[in-house]
């Protein structure tokens, strides 16, 4: 029977493929946003609510940046992609998604759970990583500001 997760899998594969196939950068960014949202829904379906919410929040930020960048690129103007090409891409993507819906490679039984809750997994097992992650994000912010500021000065 066709379940919800099969629908999410279909949407993920089709929108991911269309994000690369569509020539218009804005349409590609919208398609990529749909893919990230469907991945988030899939995580909810896998009983991973924290991962789903983080994926949704981070995806929203990523897509906002992609959308602005694609608007900038779209000003160039170029040849229009034909409707036939878009439909052919969508049909090909549906074909590619079939193995993900139909195939199931079985169960694993060799890993034993250590029964950690999410907060203890994050703060007791990976506390140093979380602090390191904060440093990485701070470095990113400084790096992005430096790159953009330097080019503005030179311009």
């Amino acid at each position: 029977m066709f379940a919800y997760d099969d629908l999410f899998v279909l949407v993920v594969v089709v929108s991911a493929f269309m994000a690369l196939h569509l020539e218009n950068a804005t349409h590609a960014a919208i398609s990529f946003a749909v893919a990230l949202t469907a991945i988030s829904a899939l995580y909810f379906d896998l009983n991973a609510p924290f991962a789903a919410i983080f994926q949704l929040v981070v995806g929203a930020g990523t897509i906002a940046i992609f959308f602005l960048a694609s608007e900038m690129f779209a000003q160039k103007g170029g040849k229009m992609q034909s409707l036939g090409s878009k439909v052919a891409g969508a049909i090909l993507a549906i074909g590619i998604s079939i193995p993900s819906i139909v195939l199931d490679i079985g169960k694993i039984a060799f890993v034993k759970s250590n029964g950690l809750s999410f907060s203890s997994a994050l703060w007791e097992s990976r506390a140093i990583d979380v602090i390191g992650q904060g440093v990485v994000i701070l470095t990113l912010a400084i790096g992005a500001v430096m790159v953009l500021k330097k080019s503005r000065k030179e311009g």
Partner: protein
Amino acid sequence: MEHIVLSLTLLMIGMYGLITKRDLLKTLISIELIAAAASMNFVMFSSIVGDQLGQAFFILMLSVDTSMTAIVIALVLVSYRELKVSDAMELHKFKRDRDEK
């Protein structure tokens, strides 16, 4: 375990984009898809085993991936603003011409 096939499919789509597309934005989308395919495994195995450590790793991976995306998109925007180029090959040509001079 059916989502392993989804992860592989996303990986293949990302590889296809990396190999065939020259547009810098499409290349970045391909890299994002490959990262999403890799991080999906953390969540999937965490869900199967019933252990939350996979989700913690996923969040760490997501933040590093987002950092990388922000830096790369800043570089793409700068290259477009300075050189009016959004094609990887054109960018390579600029570099080669500059080296020859």
